[in-house]
Every structure is written in C-alpha cells, then in structure tokens.
C-alpha cells in the first residue's frame, strides 16, 4: 500500500501546479479565472510581485512535494530491506536551510517596500503642492455616496455634485479620492485598479491611482459592514476627459433642475 500512498502524495505537487498553470494560461476550463484585468499604472508592480512569489513558492512546493513522494516510495518499510539511517540530524544542513530561506525572505521583504510606499505613502504632487481630491467617497450601509469637489476643488461647498454608487473618473489622469465612512467599517476595493483601503469611521484618508483604459469596472466593499455587505456594489466608470466633462455637466444640470416637463422626461 505504501506505493499507493506515495503516489497519492505525488498528486499534490502535480495537480497543485497543474491547477495554477491552467488558471494562468488563458483559455480552457479555467479561462478568466485569474487576476482580473489591470487598468492601472501601478498595478503591474503588484501583479509582477504576485507572479514572482508564485514561481518561488512553486519551486519550493515542487521540491518538497517531490522529496516527500520519493522518501515515501523509497523508504516504505514493506519494500525497503535496508536498516534505518540512525541519525539525529545534521548541523550543516540546519545552517544551510536556515540561512538560505532567511536570505530569500529578507530579500523579498526589502524588495517590495518601494511598491508599498508608492501605493500608500507617497501622496501625489501636482504643480508643487498636494493634488486636491477629485471627490469624497463616503461608504455607508450599503452604498457609496460620492461627492465631487466641483470647479472650486473644495469638498463641502454648494457646487458639489452628489452621486450614488457611480464613480466617474477621467482616464490617464492621476485621481485622488478622499475616503471616509459614515457608520461602520467598509473597504474601498477596486479590483481592476489594484486598490484596497479600509474606510474607518472617524478617519478621513486618501487613495490615489491612475488608470490607462476606459470602461466599466466594479467597486467592491471588502470589509464586513452588515447584512448588506454584498449589496455594496458600485461602478467605476473610466472615460475620456471629454466624456467625463460631458457627464459632469449633465449631472450638475440634473441636480439643479428647477422644472419638470412630463413629455420630455418620461
């Protein structure tokens, strides 16, 4: 039976790697079952880091899995006539397999600090000063309330545009958003932009990103906020500068409507 069990353990690295290969390579049964489309400028760093760690851990996975299979196969008591290799360990090996992984892990840790800083710590600068936020995104149970700063670039004045759930942003432009929560913890997750930041009640924070492709993408809430956590779907609408201005003007007009004519509205 030892042979059978060894082969079962061999299945682990074999199938384990196969699943990831099928997922990463487009097409086939796992088509579109991998990282979603990345439309951001900085997202590539994250994706590359993900893949690097995947390959590294993949190698370790295959090696340890293969070793486990090989040892189970070769040292099966029913099939192995040799006496046991009576040893309590090896100093040399312990040193090698302590130092080597430590070095690799430290390398990964230090290597990615830049990417982290860029995403969370380096606030965008425009014309020598901090770029004002395009909008205030307030998470509440269970929707995204968005308040555009408007032409005066100040949030909280009378020219602000109030929108729910639809976040329009211009493409190819660095967008800064102020984010807050009105009630409980939420998390502002844009899968296609590789942005995630918890909205903490009592704190106003900022997120920033730059997109490079137009289209319609999801905004997901990524921190449990109650029964309607799943309902907090928003839409990120990335559009050209002209389309954005056109939409903005239209929305402001709708928000300041002082007449209602049935024929033209229904």
């Amino acid at each position, binding site marked *: 039976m030892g042979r059978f069990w060894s082969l079962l353990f061999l299945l682990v690295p074999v199938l384990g790697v196969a699943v990831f290969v099928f997922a990463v390579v487009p097409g086939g049964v796992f088509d579109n079952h991998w990282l979603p489309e990345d439309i951001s400028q900085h997202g590539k760093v994250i994706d590359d880091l993900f893949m690097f760690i995947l390959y590294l851990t993949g190698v370790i996975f295959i090696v340890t899995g293969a070793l486990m299979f090989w040892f189970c196969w070769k040292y099966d008591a029913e099939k192995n006539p040799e006496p046991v290799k009576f040893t309590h360990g090896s100093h040399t090996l312990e040193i090698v397999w302590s130092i080597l992984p430590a070095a690799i892990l430290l390398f990964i840790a230090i290597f990615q600090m830049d990417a982290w800083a860029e995403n*969370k*710590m*380096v*606030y965008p600068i425009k014309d020598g000063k*901090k*770029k*004002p*936020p395009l909008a205030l995104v307030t998470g509440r*149970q*269970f*929707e995204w*309330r968005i308040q555009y700063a408007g032409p005066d670039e100040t949030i909280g*004045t*009378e020219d602000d545009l*109030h929108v*729910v*759930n*639809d976040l329009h942003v211009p493409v190819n432009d660095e967008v*800064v958003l*102020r984010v807050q929560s009105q009630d409980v913890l939420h998390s502002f997750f844009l899968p296609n932009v590789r942005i995630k930041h918890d909205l*903490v009640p*009592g*704190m*106003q*924070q*900022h997120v*920033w990103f730059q997109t490079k492709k137009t289209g319609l993408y999801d905004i997901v809430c990524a921190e449990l906020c109650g*029964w*309607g956590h799943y*309902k907090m*779907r*928003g*839409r990120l609408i990335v559009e050209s500068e002209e389309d954005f201005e056109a939409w903005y003007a239209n929305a402001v007009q*709708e*928000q*300041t*409507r*002082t*007449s*209602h*004519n*049935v024929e033209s*509205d*229904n």
Partner: protein
Amino acid sequence: MASLLFACMFVLTGCNSEPASFQINEAYIRAVEYKADVTKPQLISEQTVTLSEAQKKNVSEILEGLFGTPDEPRLPGGVGLDNLLSLRKLRVAAGPVTYTGEENSDSGLESGLYRRHCGHCHGVSGDGHGPTAEFLNPYPRDYRMGQFKFKLTDGDGAYKKPSKADFRHLLQEGIAGTAMPSFRVLPEPEREAIIDYVIYLSIRGQMERGLIDEAYSAASDPNELPDNPEKILVRFGEVVAGDDLQFVKGLLTPIVLPWATNDGTGTVQRTIEKAPEEWDSDESVELGRKLFYQSKANCYSCHGRTAIGDGQTNLFDNWTLEHLGNEPGDASGSGEDGVSAGIPDYFYRGHLAQIGVVKPRNIKPRNLRIGNYRGGRRPIDIYQRITGGIEGSPMPSNTKLTKAEAWSLVAYVLSLPYEPASRPKTAPVFQGVGSSK
C-alpha cells in the same frame, strides 16, 4: 451500518421546504376588528366579531385565483390592467431565484428578481416585513396600502399613485439616508420587471384589504349583505357564477383605476413650471426663512424652531397608525430607538408581534440641516415635497403658498446645510495617510 448511512443520506438530501406563499394580511384583519370594536360598541354579539378561518381561506383563494402565487403570478383580465402590467415581466420578477446560466427561457433574463433583490426587506407579499425588516430604520415600505411617499404625481392637494417614471427614478437613486439602495447597476429590463411586480403586489394588497372589508361586513352584519363572501369561490380563474364575477370586478376596478390612468398605461408625473428667475437669490432665501416660521407654511411646528426636526416627536405614519388602533396623537413621548412609550410592551408583544407587524416607531420630521433628502435633492424634488406633501406621512401638501413663495422656501431649505449653525465645531477629524491639510 448500512441503515445509518441511509439515514444520513435522507437527512442530507434535505427535506425541501414548501414553496414561498403569500401571507394573509393579519395586521389589517386585526385593525378592522379593533376599529369596529371601538366604533361600534353596540354590536349584535357580545364579543368582537372576528373573521373565521374559512373566510380567511376564501380571501386567500380568491386572491390566488386572481393574482396567482409568488412562484406563478397571474394577471386578472378585464379590469384595465392589460396596458399597465405585463405578465411576461411579472414572471421574470416572480419565482424562486435562478442564477447565471439558468435564465428564464421566455425573456432571456434570470427570474426571481424580486426575491433576490427586494424580498428579504419588503417581504414576499410586499408587506414590508421580510426577515431583514425589523432591523432597519426606517422600515421598508408595505405596498399593500397602495400609498407611496416619494413621487412627482401628487399635486393640488390630492395624492395620486406613483408613475412608472417615479419608480424608475427611485430605483436609479435609491432613498438617501435609508437602507433602500440604488439599483442602477441592474440592467434596465430587470428594473422594469421589478417595477411591474411592485405595482402588482400593491394592487393585490389593496384588493386583499377590500376583500377583508367585505368579509368582515358579512361576518358582522349577516342580515344586510346580499352577497356572502363565503359563497364566492373563484378557483384558478374559473368563475362560479356571474354575480360573483361582478362582485370581484366591482371591488377590483376602482382599485386599478387610479393606477392605470392615461389610457391604462399608468399615471403621469405632474409638470412643474420653471422656477422664477432669482429663486435662489439671497432675498428669496430670506423670504423663505420668514415663511418657514409663519403659519401659512407652518414648517417650524414639526421641523422645529431650529429646523433640526424636533418640533413633533410623537407622530406616526399611516402604516403604523393602522396597527395601533389609536387616534393619532394618543400615544405620547418616545422611548428608546424611537419606539413610542405610549404603546405598552404587552400590547406589542401580545398582539402585533403575533400578526407579523414590526415594532411601531414614531416618524420624526426631517432634520433639514444635514443635507440628506430622502426623496431627492433636486430643487424640483424639494418643491414637490412642499407643495405635494408626502403621502402616508404627516407632511402635508400645501396649496396656500404661491409658486414664488414655494420656490423661496425651496431655496431656504437647500441653503440650510451650508449655514454656519449647521456646521458646528467638532473635534478635528483624524487626518489619515497623505492628508492634504
């Protein structure tokens, strides 16, 4: 060993539940009984007249014959509904939820839309008492009274049914400051199907009330009523006798009529003429402020002297009033979480909880200084609230103001959140990462 496995299999395949079913409007039955008790102390019998189980069953059967079940809706014919609602859309909205890949073959859409998106708050029967409802503030709408708050159809002191355009706008924007979300992410055909279904539930609910009224008058005054509802059996569209069909039509047509105006296609929103020039000037805002405190508009009496909504704290909305059996204003004070202390807990627990009514809560006038407008923040929305009122709530429609005065009030209301008084100094907000200050 084998029997143990078999038993496990049985448990694991699960005992499937009964399909979803409409629940009879017990709350209304109780309200009718209670009201009759109070207003007609000289009843023929000693005790309060109640509907028998057989009568309740009859009401349910008639409704099923006319409107079908939550899984299989029907549209009664010959009452003017054909241009208003589409059975195809109802079928898409009704039924158990199907998921991607198993679309309803008729329409190409998924079905079960209502139960997927709306049912857990608004209830399978549209009673505003789904499983989630008791945890929400404000409660979800009970469609069965046929009254709706936010619509552009009211005017001239009269409340009209909401138009489909109103429903569309509501699904698009949600209701700010409540648990009613914006459903703009749903494709338009799905939203249309849901709108039809909501109107369907409302009409069904109103018909249910009518039938209960009829059943109750038959029960309480058997000598007078010629058509005894206990004889009416409309099984699955098959009418037993001509008289019975007339009876049913006689109840249903007046219910449908206010919904299906405009050649039966539905109500139409009113036209609001453009606001006068300078409607939002400083002088106009100042005029609005004066009007706020005068008796012509009488805003301050409910919204409070400082417009933060503390003028009246013991009012109820229509949906709650019905269950209380009290006269408006009887219950006094407000307890924790807005539950009126005037309603004894034993009354709630003993009566209302049993018939599936959410815990009664006062309706508070809106705090106008926080910039949250449930019915919409457009000037025309505020204008509508002032001139057309909010049906079902104590906010009245105002026909005494002139157009210019009404617009001045609109300007005042919209300016309130930006007044210094509305922005008190608070502790500085903790500026997180990358603050721009």
